[in-house]
């Protein structure tokens, strides 16, 4: 179909029931004038040309009753009238339905601008969310869009596919917009003059190593599935697709070559955004998020704040307390959980010597727990010295956990996971239940076949290969491609690598589930990114890599790592092909990545939708 398709219009987002309040001030409090319309983000890709744009459109609903509007429309017309890429104006249009109205000529309101013109989006909430748009051309002011019928989050998510949204310093309601970097288009620039079918071919010839340079460089090629046949370690597309599928559930990679479209073989992540983290949430902020009965309110915002750094809140984060529970409900829950805990504790406490003599598993668990409790965080004030009550608590909670989950029992590493939790909770029952919740996430790491560890090592290896093929190749050449040296990191989530305070910080960030799933894998990538230069320059072999990584313990800067990891996440997110995949899991099941021959940008679309819109264009 490449011969006749010249334009693909893809509606990326569409939502009806988005209002403007033309008569109101910017604060949007006055509700006299409500004009309902539908909001769209449309991607227009012109084939065989360099043109593509993502456009935001808001259009008044046809046939909407809006008499109130008539009085004020004239005064706003000039103000909203735009030139060039931006337009907000009334379009003359005839209302033919007019059942409620007088049937005379009416105007429709509409608003259109290119996403690339957008400077920032400010998110406000006054009972409903509304968004202010500021354009790069600051002389232009646009009306706020009011999401009376929801959809603002989806809208922002959709916008993120075309632009990077990052919080403005000092104003978390304001999202600064940056559209795909020039680097991205430049890296493809040299491809554009090539013939229509030369993409993959060109990639193969491209001495991409030279562009790779360093991870920090502006241009990062992250994925090279179909690297040239001259490559020693060439992997067939099917294998690569299969590999990706393991880490990236839901991502399907198109392996056919078709005229008109080309399979994406390499992805350019663009520049890594600089991330500025904020100070921890204060106790005051925390209590502000409680209503009168103690329910936590505005949980997404709270999680966001916690993700940015906080101490507190572990019981909620770990799921021991439901976010929407009242103070009273939590009291009841706590009572019940206390009973349950002590029942289980009594179970092992009341086992006689004779019973234990005939229960080798219990004996083994107890023996190992006793040994490990004596070897866990003994320099921490909470566990130091002989007969420290902290040691007894650590022991008792681990023994009780064996009763809670006898199949798993105790495995080395679990004392490391419990120790910080107990330190923060300072309470046996709370620590136990928080530990139980944490173990639900970590369970697979400790199971007989260590499936969780194997899976994570494979995922990490795949991710690293995507992010930094050169480094991955180096590791592979040193028999280290399977990343054994990350074992301790993954088994106990960096517990041995960081100070207690830093462990708190990292764990609560991970427990928010922000900014993405599997964030700990990006943390691994961030650390490896920092060490890669040394490892490669010093030409470390298998042993030296292991030793080097082991010796990073207690030398890592957690803030730097979190910033970098979040930066990588934003990088991946802004890279359309990978978003909703590695990190985003099951978003789109039938994601197919296309690249138009002559375009310096990716179009990520559902294949059927493309066909549909092509058909429409033909008509």
């Amino acid at each position, binding site marked *: 179909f490449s011969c006749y398709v010249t334009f693909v219009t893809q509606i990326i987002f569409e939502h009806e029931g988005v209002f403007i309040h033309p008569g109101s001030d910017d604060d949007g409090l006055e509700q006299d004038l409500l004009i309902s319309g539908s909001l769209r983000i449309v991607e227009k890709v012109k084939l065989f040309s360099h043109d593509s744009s993502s456009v935001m459109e808001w259009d008044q609903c046809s046939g909407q009753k809006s008499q109130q509007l008539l009085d004020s429309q004239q005064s706003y017309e000039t103000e909203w009238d735009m030139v060039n890429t931006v337009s907000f104006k009334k379009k003359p249009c005839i209302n033919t339905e007019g059942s409620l109205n007088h049937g005379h000529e009416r105007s429709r309101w509409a608003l259109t601008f290119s996403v690339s013109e957008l400077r920032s989006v400010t998110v406000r909430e006054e009972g409903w969310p509304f968004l202010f748009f500021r354009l790069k051309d600051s002389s232009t002011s646009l009306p706020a869009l009011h999401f009376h019928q929801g959809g603002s989050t989806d809208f922002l998510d959709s916008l993120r596919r075309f632009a990077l949204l990052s919080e403005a310093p000092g104003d978390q309601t304001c999202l600064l917009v940056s559209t795909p970097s020039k680097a991205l288009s430049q890296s493809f620039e040299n491809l554009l003059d090539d013939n229509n079918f030369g993409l993959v071919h060109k990639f193969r010839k491209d001495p991409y190593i030279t562009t790779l340079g360093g991870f920090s460089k502006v241009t990062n090629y992250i994925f090279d599935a179909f690297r040239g046949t001259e490559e020693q370690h060439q992997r067939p597309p099917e294998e690569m697709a299969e590999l990706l599928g393991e880490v990236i559930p839901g991502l399907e990679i198109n392996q056919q070559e078709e005229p008109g479209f080309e399979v994406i073989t390499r992805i350019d992540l663009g520049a890594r955004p600089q991330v500025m983290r904020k100070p921890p949430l204060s106790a005051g902020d925390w209590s502000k998020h409680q209503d009168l009965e103690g329910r936590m309110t505005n949980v997404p915002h709270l999680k966001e704040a916690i993700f940015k750094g906080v101490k507190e809140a572990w019981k909620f984060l770990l799921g021991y307390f439901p976010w929407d529970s009242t103070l009273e409900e939590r009291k009841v829950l706590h009572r019940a959980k206390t009973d349950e805990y002590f029942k289980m504790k009594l179970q092992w406490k009341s086992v006689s010597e004779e019973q234990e003599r005939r229960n080798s598993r219990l004996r083994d668990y107890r023996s190992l727990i006793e*040994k490990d409790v004596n070897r*866990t965080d*003994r320099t921490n004030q909470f566990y130091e010295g002989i007969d420290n009550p902290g040691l007894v608590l650590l022991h008792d909670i681990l023994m009780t956990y064996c009763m809670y989950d006898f199949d798993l029992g105790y*495995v080395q590493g679990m004392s490391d996971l419990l120790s910080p939790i107990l330190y923060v909770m300072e309470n046996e029952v709370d620590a136990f239940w928080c530990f139980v919740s944490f173990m639900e996430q970590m369970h697979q790491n400790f199971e*007989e076949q*260590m499936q969780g560890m194997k899976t994570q090592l494979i995922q990490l290896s795949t991710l690293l290969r995507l992010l930094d093929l050169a480094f991955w190749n180096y590791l592979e050449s040193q028999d280290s491609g399977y990343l054994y040296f990350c*074992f*301790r990191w993954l*088994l*106990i989530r960096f517990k041995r690598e960081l100070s207690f305070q830093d462990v708190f910080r990292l764990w609560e960030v991970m427990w928010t589930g922000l900014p993405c799933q599997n964030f700990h894998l990006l943390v691994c990538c961030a650390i490896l990114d920092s060490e890669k230069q040394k490892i490669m320059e010093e030409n470390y072999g298998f042993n030296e890599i292991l030793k080097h990584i082991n010796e990073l313990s207690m030398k890592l800067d957690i803030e730097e790592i979190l910033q970098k990891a979040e930066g990588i996440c934003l990088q991946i997110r802004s890279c359309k092909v990978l978003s909703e995949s590695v990190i985003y899991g099951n978003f789109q099941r039938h994601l197919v990545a296309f690249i138009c021959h002559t375009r310096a940008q990716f179009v990520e679309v559902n294949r059927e939708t493309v066909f549909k819109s092509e058909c429409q264009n033909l008509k």
Partner: protein
Amino acid sequence: TRANSGRARSITPAVTMTAKTSLLKVILLGDGGVGKSSLMNRYVTNKFDTHLFHTIGVEFLNKELEVDAHQVTLQIWDTAGQERFRSLRTPFYRGSDCCLLTFSVDDNQSFLNLGNWKKEFIYYADVKEPEKFPFVVLGNKLDVTERQVTSEEAQQWCQENGGHPYYETSAKDATNVAVAFEEAVRRVLASDERTDHLIPTDTVKLHRKPRSATTCCS
């Protein structure tokens, strides 16, 4: 299964032996909590840390020493002892020159498990002639008062299982630690010399790495 050893290649690179200093890889095996890490740290740094963590994953330390006029770099590998972590540690067995089977004299179970550790090592290290491979048995925690394993029992086990040398050590007060590691080196060198008589001296050896001038000990 041996799936892991299939992926993991020999850890000590194959090189010729021409330099004076050779790299010897020894591995400490034994139940959790018998004192493997403490033995390694005592020997390499001459320190004992009562607050030492239990080992997660795999670690190693190097120690330069001279035994009978041979300059040797001893690379001591230390692993997590719990059964569960077998698939992690076994890939590291390959290329070992000597295995230190370790138990604690105050823990009978750790003594009873020596046989299993030996079997696991032979299997995963892919030792061709197990009866000739140098094992050394260490009974650690000699400093504790309540013993569960007597010297006689331990010695008998060593006799019956291939005539391995046996040392009773205390990482805490340093008793016999250096002696035991040096014995391990002697065993390796002795088995090398035996081999040296059998093959021409210019033959490439596959498990010795020469020390470069820059890293050679002073």
